[in-house]
């Protein structure tokens, strides 16, 4: 609550009638904000059951099942990108901050396409922050479907303040149905604002963030950590026995790890050794969708251990 009052001006420009019979006093303005905020809380409590139903099916059966039907529509989801290079992998966090990171664009494009194919989807998609702009080619769907390309618009905003402002504005625009934004250097307050705005409009907001920000506090509903999926040579991976170039062309694969899934069910946490929380995703270019790689045999414990090691090293 205090986080909201610290920067009230952004809310006031929209919510306080400028052309009313009289200007509202500051007390009235604060009261209006409180009312609005209170209403949000009440509504989210009352609609708790129904919100369970409003989910975006990702098309990844295992993941949908683990999340209880898909990504929650009216929520913020964070996707941590992949640091390109080994300096980050070696765990030197101060080096990593200068590292280039790549947002997981193809999984996001997949989700956007899934969202767009739902009925009752407002037609525009806002991409905010130059880093998360995909190449136009991947927005053209299978068979030359250019709907997504035509409905997308791209906003270049530098700096977290401008990006947050643009994200909030986009989330309030009735014509926008989905917001994808570069969320690097967003703090807890910023993510909470995005989360509340997404819930008020009942549309999803997808933030991409650099991988070294996994320790930052956030109000996101789910957090995903993606890494390049190495082909293991030791024989534990899916491709160990495949060596033939013809039958095994180069692929783009990620291992996606669900770091957090709020509201999955009471008390559900991705525990160290219970239940799968890491999957291998693969881009299927013919269908222009991302699939869960079917023959996943990667030991989950490994993935958890390596991720936890990394987090510990960062800390």
């Amino acid at each position, binding site marked *: 609550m205090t986080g909201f009052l610290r920067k009230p001006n952004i809310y006031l420009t929209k919510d306080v009638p400028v052309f009313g019979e009289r200007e509202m006093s500051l007390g009235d303005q604060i009261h209006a904000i409180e009312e609005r905020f209170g209403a949000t809380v009440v509504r989210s409590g009352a609609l708790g059951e129904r919100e369970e139903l409003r989910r975006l099916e990702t098309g990844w059966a295992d993941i949908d099942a683990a999340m209880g039907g898909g990504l929650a529509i009216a929520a913020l989801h964070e996707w941590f990108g992949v640091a390109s290079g080994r300096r980050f992998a070696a765990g030197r966090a101060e080096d990593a901050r200068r590292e280039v990171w790549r947002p997981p664009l193809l999984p996001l494009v997949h989700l956007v396409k899934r969202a767009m194919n739902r009925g009752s989807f407002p037609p525009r998609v806002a991409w905010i922050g130059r880093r998360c702009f995909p*190449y*136009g080619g991947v927005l053209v769907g299978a068979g030359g479907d250019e709907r997504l390309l035509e409905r997308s618009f791209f906003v270049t*905003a530098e700096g977290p303040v401008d990006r947050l*402002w643009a994200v909030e504005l986009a989330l309030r625009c*009735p014509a926008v149905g989905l917001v994808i934004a570069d969320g690097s250097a967003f703090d807890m307050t910023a993510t909470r604002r995005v989360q509340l705005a997404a819930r008020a409009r009942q549309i999803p907001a997808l933030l991409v963030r650099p991988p070294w920000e996994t320790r930052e506090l956030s109000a996101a509903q789910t957090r995903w950590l993606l890494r390049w999926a*190495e082909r293991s040579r030791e024989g534990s991976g899916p491709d160990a026995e495949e060596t033939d170039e013809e039958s095994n062309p*180069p692929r783009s694969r990620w291992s996606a790890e669900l770091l957090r899934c709020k509201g999955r069910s009471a008390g559900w946490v991705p525990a160290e050794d219970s239940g799968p929380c890491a999957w291998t995703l693969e881009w299927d*270019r013919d269908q222009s969708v991302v699939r869960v790689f079917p023959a996943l045999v990667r030991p989950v414990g490994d993935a958890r251990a390596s991720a936890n090691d990394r987090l510990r090293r960062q800390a």
Partner: protein
Amino acid sequence: MREHRRTTACAGRRDASPSAESAPAVVLAAAERGKQWVACACERAEARGVRPGMSLAHAKALLKGMHVWEKPFTPAEDAQALRRLARWAGRFSPVVAADEPDGLLLEMSGCEGLFGEDRDMISRIDASFKKLNLPVRLALAPTIGCAWAVARFAADRIRIVAPRRVREELTPLPVAGLRIPPLFVEALHEVGIERIGSLFDLPREELACRFGADLLRRLDQAAGQVGEIITPLRPATPIEAARGFDGPVTNPDAIEVTVRELLFALVLQLEERACGVRTLDVVLQRVSAEPYRFSIALSHPNRDVRHLWTLLRPKIERAELGWGVESVSLHASRLGRLTARQLPLAQAEPQREEQGDESSLGEFLDLLMDRLGRGAVGRMAAAETYVPEEAFPWRALSETRTAVGADSRAGESRGAAWKDRPSQLFSVPEPAQVISPAPDGPPSWLRWRGEECLVRRSRGPERLALPWWEAKRGTSPSSNAARDYYEVEDDQGRLLWVFRDLTTHGWFVHGLWA
């Protein structure tokens, strides 16, 4: 009075172009109840015997062997173009009228002093039309009717009628020059009257009995017995609102209140005209300083006071008032059509959401562009090229005329070409060092951004090159060479898109599947 009135009539043939033997014949065809007929034909076509009103098949038979341009006849567009031309002709006279379907009327009384002699004036007008590639016939005459007839039926292309010679000039011209319906022309032909001169000799009472008062009126108008005035084309009244202060004002609050009130007045005008503003200029006239100007530009036409105020307010706050402001004016310099909108029952958020419309998107985009800069919001559209970096050019929304998602091009099936493209493409390919086992083969090791990686798998090459006509022109030096693209999976699991430049043989990383 009549002596001083000089009227110029211009009769233009829109399709009359400099004739060359090989030039095509132009026929404007109209269709009615499934039948196509010639509405208008150019001189070359008429020389072959094509006449307006004949069937299109007949005309084509007459024009056999010639290259024929057949265009649809669009009278409404022609009239619009004529009105535009009339507005352009405002440079010669303040009183101009479009005389449909093919003429302009200019009132030249009082303009002689500006252009010198009559002959100079007329040749200057002619030269101006020639620059537009419009051959016209011109007549300068004391009456509208006379100028109309002489411009159309006189032997000379340019003719000046002396003040006292109106009757003499009209005498040899055909009766069609009297601006009477074709029915009357035919009736006059039947009784053997073909020239206007014959009408002057006939008793007026009998003419009125047989052909009605209209013929006499036209005759008198041409001869100058009855007055006639040109109804000039009126320029559109600008939409603006202004207010002056009683003495210089330095209080910013007063300026704000004034601009707000003027905004209300402006929006009322916009509502009357069913318009929305696209560019709004504000001028603050300051004491002993140049006026302070600023403007807001909108992506969609808008006349929502609240939204306009949101955009204006920060600019007013930043305005430098100097020693005081004497007057404030608002001017809508660019307008767009905006039809009336049903008011929602209550100004609640869900109501707006149900509208889910262009205007809310427009307001959103305006706010973005206002804060982040005009070029900050854009979209991508597929371009007709296979050069990867030029295939999806970024276009700022402020430059494109249509807003997001308005156009629905026929999507041709080039999707297959995009499926092998990465999700992230570097605008400038990044150089890489490569070890390749075969001279023309895929790389087996590469160093990129200071990192070494082993190549596990690769696919390719896919050769992309500019078409030869563009490569020769060398329009884009960065991409004028052929490239061999490989998809390369390295030992980290990344899938990179690398290429070898076939002229320099250097290797570059151009994108990756992220």
